[in-house]
């Protein structure tokens, strides 16, 4: 579904991503792992239009998305969450999720200005999508009216996930969803992602929690210094000597 080929990103003298190629097959969970600074988030940023690559291509359903702005890529059906929370301020939980469902709305500015009945229908549609997504992400409905920013960190991450799900994505990019979560929250997240996976959602997961990665992923791509050093099923990469070296250091 998503194909990355010969992707390269240079930041001045630093080669962050070096000639990287891999594919994310439809309906599967693909994990992108590697030590800190390996270039994983940079890959996600290029796949979501936040960064433009120096070289190489990213195609979604055979269509190149290089050079398209972020909102265009989002409308094609790619949603993401962020390593550092990017919560919308001064919004209730429900409103944050409704903003996620932005692309469900088709109204133009004129019907909005004059408050035509089509807007009421559209708002109802967006609100339903948002409520479904929040329920899917396991946010209790008692919190829907609360200011999203005042929630505990773990719940904010869920709201962010709901915001991504509300867009009804075909591909979900998750950037370290378990970062900063306690063991109980991580277990809940794992259960939640299993449910999404069972529902047939295609996921590209960047994560450091190896238990989570090994349990959820169908394929794993291991990166180090911007390059893919191994790829395959979780079992295959676990026994790969290069992977062991990257994570634990070489034996002398």
């Amino acid at each position, binding site marked *: 579904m998503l194909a990355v080929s010969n992707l390269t990103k240079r930041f001045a003298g630093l080669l962050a991503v070096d000639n990287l190629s891999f594919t994310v097959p439809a309906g599967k969970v693909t994990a992108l792992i590697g030590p800190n600074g390996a270039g994983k988030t940079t890959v996600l940023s290029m796949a*979501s*239009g*936040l960064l433009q690559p120096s070289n190489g291509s990213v195609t979604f359903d055979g269509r190149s998305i290089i050079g398209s*702005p*972020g*909102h265009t890529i*989002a*409308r094609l059906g790619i*949603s*993401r969450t*962020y390593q550092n929370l*990017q*919560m*919308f*301020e*001064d*919004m*209730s939980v*429900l*409103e944050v999720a*409704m*903003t*996620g469902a*932005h*692309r469900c*709305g088709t*109204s133009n*500015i004129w019907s*909005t*200005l*004059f*408050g035509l009945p089509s*807007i*009421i229908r*559209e*708002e*109802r549609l*967006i*609100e339903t999508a948002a409520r479904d997504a929040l329920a899917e992400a396991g946010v209790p409905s008692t919190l829907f*009216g609360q*200011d999203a920013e005042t929630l505990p960190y773990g719940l904010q991450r869920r709201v962010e996930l709901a*915001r*991504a799900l*509300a*867009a009804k994505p075909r591909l979900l990019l998750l950037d370290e969803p378990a970062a900063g979560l306690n063991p109980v929250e991580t277990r809940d997240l794992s259960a939640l992602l299993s449910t999404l996976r069972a529902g047939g959602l295609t996921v590209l997961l960047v994560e450091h929690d190896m238990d989570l990665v090994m349990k959820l992923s169908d394929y794993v791509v291991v990166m180090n210094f911007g390059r893919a050093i191994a790829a395959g099923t979780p079992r295959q990469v676990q026994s790969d000597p290069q992977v062991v070296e990257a994570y634990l250091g070489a034996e002398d």
Partner: protein
Amino acid sequence: MSSLRRSYRQNLLGLGIAALLLVGVGLIVSNSFYLTTLIFALISAISAIGLTLVFGFAGLASLGQAAFFGIGAYTAACLTEFYHLPPLLSLMCAVASASLSAWAIGRPLLRLSGVYLTMASLAFGLIAYLTFSQMRRITGGLDPGFMLTHEFSIGPFRLGDTHSMYWVCSCFTIATLLVALNLIHSKFGRALRALKSSAPASEGVGISTASYKSTVFAIAAGMTGLSGGLYAFFMRSFNATAFNFNLSIELLVVVMIGSLRSVWGALFGAAFVTLLPTLLENLEDFKLFVYGAIIVAIMMFMPDGLFDGLLRLVIRSPRKADV
């Protein structure tokens, strides 16, 4: 009914109450000095409603609103004076011309952010002011200024006198508020608040931040152009000084005193900034001192603005996401 829908209904109820209050005031007040002050407050409120959308909701601090006010005023005045267009039509053209010019300069200007955007909009305001004062053949410049010989009218109804202009300005204020409330309670309003807090996350949910910014900038300029046009028809004789930097500053103060989080603040802020100096007139030498002290006190004790501050005094609830 969903809570968001209920909040929209409550705002419409508020709009009804505001309309009744304006009618009440219009029936009671007959002194033309007070009516004039009220008209200035309404004109300033219409501009401030637009600026609340741009500054309060989308987080774009513009110091160039006086330019759109001036464009609106001169468009309305010229079309009526030189081309004998019906005043109402001229007023609509004033909205359109202010909006279109904002749209045109918005794309390059809004690529900037934060303090750079503010400086660029300030520069735009100054250029516009210089243009108004130098294009003397059309605008009359600073001296003698523009003389509009036609009074405001709708069809056969002549509405040039102060009392009629009060009704006209009241109607346009309510209409502007309604449009602003419609915008806020839609995906458009959510998109504005979203792009204010995180541009990458907004793009990530499919919001084109560039086009939303220029659209809200154009809508706000249209509202400012409307108030400029009303100003022209009310004053009938004015010069370019009316559209200098002070006006942009005053509008920003109106929004900050009123509220950054609700368009209702524009009414409170405009009433405050316009009426307070009049009420303090007796203090003579101390007038500015007291005026400044009151503003500082409001900013200290009601940092969210008069509207939120008063609302909290009334309902005594903690800060919540009220729009």
